[in-house]
């Protein structure tokens, strides 16, 4: 057991954790952040994706002690109060959510990608989401949602630049 301090969704947290404990376990069982999903425990499905210092990682594979002093963003940290992140809005409006189990990881992978490229081609989006398995949608509306969000985010960026 060791004491760890790190930032989750803007809050500094301090937890005691076992040496073999994964970030996924700590998030779900110690911090109550159950939006991060446990689908395979093998880093194969992507449902446990969170952002570590802004980059997508598989929290089921990462020992929690590795996040000491770092910044973790989970799906719960994306919206600003009642206001959804544009990606969340786009997933909702485009019908990209069915069972929703892959959705948190999918949205976070998409966010990490769009943070680097707001003009993605269809193939780029599919590549960016290749580590996030979905069994419901066939990915069609997921790709559409990311495209839609990219458009909205571009508009926002342009509006902000114009101001």
């Amino acid at each position, binding site marked *: 057991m060791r004491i760890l301090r790190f930032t989750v969704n803007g809050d500094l947290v301090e937890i005691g954790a076992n040496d073999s404990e994964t970030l996924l376990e700590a998030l779900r069982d110690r911090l109550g952040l159950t939006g991060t999903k446990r689908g395979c425990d093998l880093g194969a499905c992507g449902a446990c994706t969170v952002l570590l210092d802004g980059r997508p990682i598989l929290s089921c594979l990462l020992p929690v002690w590795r996040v000491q002093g770092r910044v973790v963003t989970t*799906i719960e940290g994306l919206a600003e109060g009642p206001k959804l992140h544009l990606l969340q809005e786009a997933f909702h409006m485009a019908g990209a959510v069915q069972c929703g189990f892959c959705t948190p990881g999918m949205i976070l992978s998409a966010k990490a990608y769009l943070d680097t490229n707001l003009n993605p081609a269809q193939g780029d989006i599919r590549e960016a989401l290749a580590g996030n398995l979905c*069994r419901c949608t066939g990915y*069609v509306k997921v790709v559409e949602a990311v495209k839609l969000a990219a458009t909205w985010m571009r508009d926002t960026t342009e509006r902000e630049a114009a101001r």
Partner: protein
Amino acid sequence: MIGKSQPRIDGVSKVRGTAMYTDDIRLPGMLVGKLLRSPHAHARVLHVDTSAAEALPGVKAVITGRDLPIAYGMLPVSQDEHALAVDVVRHVGEPVAAVAAMDERIASRALDLINVDYELLPAILDPSEALVRNDVKIQDRAVEANVERRVRLVFGDVEDGFRRAVHVRKDRFTKKGAGHASLEPHAAIASFTQDGLTLWTATQVPHYVHRTLARVLQMPMERIRVIKPTLGGGFGGKGEPMPLELVASALAVRCGRPVKITYDREEVFFTNRGRHAYTMELETGVTAEGLITAVRFSCLLDGGAYGSFGVVTLYYSGQLLTLPYHVPALEFQGARVFTNKPACGAQRGHGGVAPRFAFEVQLDRIASDLGLDPVEIRLRNQVRSGDVTINELKVTSCGFGECVEAAAEAVGWSRRRGRLPRGRGVGLAGGAYVSGAALPIYFNDMPHSNVVITADRDGGVTVLSGAADIGQGSDTMLALVAAEVLSLPMEAVRVVAADTGITPVDLGSYSSRVTFMAGNACRQAAEELRDKLFAGAAEKLGLAVEDLELRAGVIQKISAAEPAMSFGEAVAAAEGAGVPLTGVGGYRPPDLAGRYKGGGVGPSPAYSFGAHAAEVEVDELTGEVRVIRLAAAHDLGRALNPVAAEGQVEGAAVMGFGETLLEIHEVDGHGRLKASDFLEYKFPTSLDAPEVESLLVESNDPQGPFGAKEVGEGSLHPAIPAIINAVYDAAGVWIHDLPLQPHTVRAAISRGGS
């Protein structure tokens, strides 16, 4: 509102990560349960020593098969399972004992301390061996050798049909097993208090879980409450009672504390209930014009160790062959055998998928033999609205022809079929499916779906339904139907569903029944509520009911400019003496069963139809097939919520694509799973999946809610043969064995044909 795309009512909670799935629930004092599983494919359990596990600090209870001795099963004829093996284990991974402990690590350590003495028995892993081997009996109830059931159905004059045929083809096809691979693993939490047992569980069928818990735990149903939280995908894999539900409940009773069990991914694969492996022989006769004269079909289903839904799977395999083409005579013979493997059961498109693959590929071969266009042969044989098939399936609405034309058009069929450069091709196939089964799984006279709607003076309504939203969006469908009838915005409709302690019974999410059945029940309930509202408002306003209309949350005199009364005020008026305002509805299918043994499987109040066109690229050097796109046309009667319907079609088409090229659920020579995780079990990623264009065809079923029929399952069937038929167009080879393997394609190409 009907016919306009609506976002899901649970969508915001899902994108925020706040939707509560079963494993997200934590109760005070909750223990963790875990199952010990058999390493052997077939063995007698001689002795289970739990003493060391019980002595481990933090372990609260250990149970074995002796603690849950009552058998259960999905069908009345298949009560052959135990939550924990009693005397015999019949497949690798079968649960043998279970522990409840303070946490997962202690529970895992405790499992290591349980000692099981096994006496190994010979295992049967080959279904053809299961057919004949009498010295090994996997289930005592097998009728002969290890055959669970043999079926023979004959309709029409088959001999005469083949005599009339000018061309007859006989082909053999195989398909390996596949799994559902829902992203959410099974999970269940049981809590036992003075109020009885409450089970939160990831199930498609709360009602059947409820019944099974009562049976196995010997507890009255009214002392048990089953709740389905948000569910992360089912596809049939959560469509029957599962060991963890019974074990968590037994442990909670034993410990007096809540117990949670969540399967890991390997356990999900051990649980299986996925698509059966099939071996099929199909013989079809046609006239010179390509009209079908007779069909003879036989199949062998590898059932695995238990019955599950298997007898239904077997009947569906033959019964659904009479749609979407006119088949004047059919002989169907099939057998389902027991083998020492995880049991197969129902998976999206249940029963019809493998036979449809065989039929559609053979139909293309027949067209090719006769020099007919595959589209043309389908249109010539199509069933139509009003037809009754030779096995007594009644077609109430049919847009099959339109589906074929729409799919063909989408890939430029007439310009491109047979005319694309070598290595590229287009193919097409059809299909049909039930909108729920006309008969329930166990005989009873309950309605299949019940809905209660209560109205409140706040201006909103609450829909109570037992239907299980498994991700397909049934809660949103119910809200939409109620909102449409009551002219309310979606936000004014709350849905409380799938809680046997609160909601009226619904049989669950299987056989693509929910929109049709729960949708009809909801519509009826909403209409009753509306009638009561009108009566109350008319009295209060001194107007006749006929003069009133309900529009955008207000009741007003027809075409009057001024609103007369808000919805909430009308509720208050209609409450009269102070009794709450409710509407109730129920749906029971008409009596449609065929008048023959087996005539209960196949009949449905309405059938969906579909046709997919695939465009593929075949690398002739490697044999690899790339599916560029699928145009998926589906006659769903009416699209209540187009964006949701498209999502169903797209998801089903891609699942069909996965079964065509990637997915295999099978065991090695020791009965161990060849693929027990998501690295080995390959299903489509975003990079594999083709582009899918969903084409919704609306035939407006006379009995469907606002004309709607099923959409989620039937839209899988045509994808598989459409791809295989496209491979022929691209490379000139016919593939009869699924999944398609590059080396077989390459070998066929080098042989210069099939």
